[in-house]
């Protein structure tokens, strides 16, 4: 194990904080989304599309998906660090996870901006 002074460089603090901030935002968005669904009429295509077409809701939803991908990155990376001991395999999996998450984020943007 590498010997190092663990104070002063904020090892992991930024990721830890990002995971919490995105979590809080997603809780708020979920509450809003559930509120809208429960308060509204049964969904048809028109109302479902209208829901995401509003500029504000679209912005909030984009923020949700970007938060989700950042949040998932920290979480999945933590799991890989704990259970995948071989450094080469771990790097490979982390690279795959990053690509999937960036791809997901791009896809989510495309879905919302196409409307």
């Amino acid at each position: 194990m590498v010997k190092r002074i663990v104070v002063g460089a904020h090892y992991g603090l930024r990721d830890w904080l990002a995971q919490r901030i995105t979590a809080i935002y997603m809780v708020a968005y979920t509450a809003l989304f559930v509120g809208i669904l429960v308060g509204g009429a049964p969904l048809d295509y028109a109302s479902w599309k209208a829901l995401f077409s509003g500029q504000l809701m679209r912005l909030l939803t984009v923020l949700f998906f970007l938060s989700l991908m950042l949040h998932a990155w920290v979480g999945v990376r933590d799991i890989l660090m704990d259970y995948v001991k071989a450094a080469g395999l771990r790097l490979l999996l982390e690279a795959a996870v990053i690509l999937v998450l960036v791809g997901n984020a791009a896809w989510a943007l495309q879905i919302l901006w196409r409307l």
Partner: protein
Amino acid sequence: MSDLTQKSRPAFFNIFYLALHLGLPGYISFLHRISGTLLFLATVWLLFLLDRSLASPEQFAFVKHYLSLPLVKLPLLVLLWSFLHHFFAGIRFLFIDVHVGVDLPTARKTSVVVLALSLTLTALIGVRLW
């Protein structure tokens, strides 16, 4: 300053041993990981459903039909539980981050609340949707 230097120490991650000896808060934590992993793996599928449902009225109808298939309902129910567990356990962890509910009796109580809430809501929403 020497006590700030990290000592080389053995890490203990035998999942099978831990699974047998974990307390309830430990299970909440482990289920948080499992549910998070499932949600991560399912994101592409859920994005596909969102994509199709917003594409056209015909595709919206297709998604509605697709989601009514028993073989689709089952994984969806698992994902519903995953989301609810991750949601409530996550809120519990956020409180623990700010030192609320850290002591063992409280941590055990909130663990029961998280389990009960996520399972009950999964059953209620599951019955209502299907």
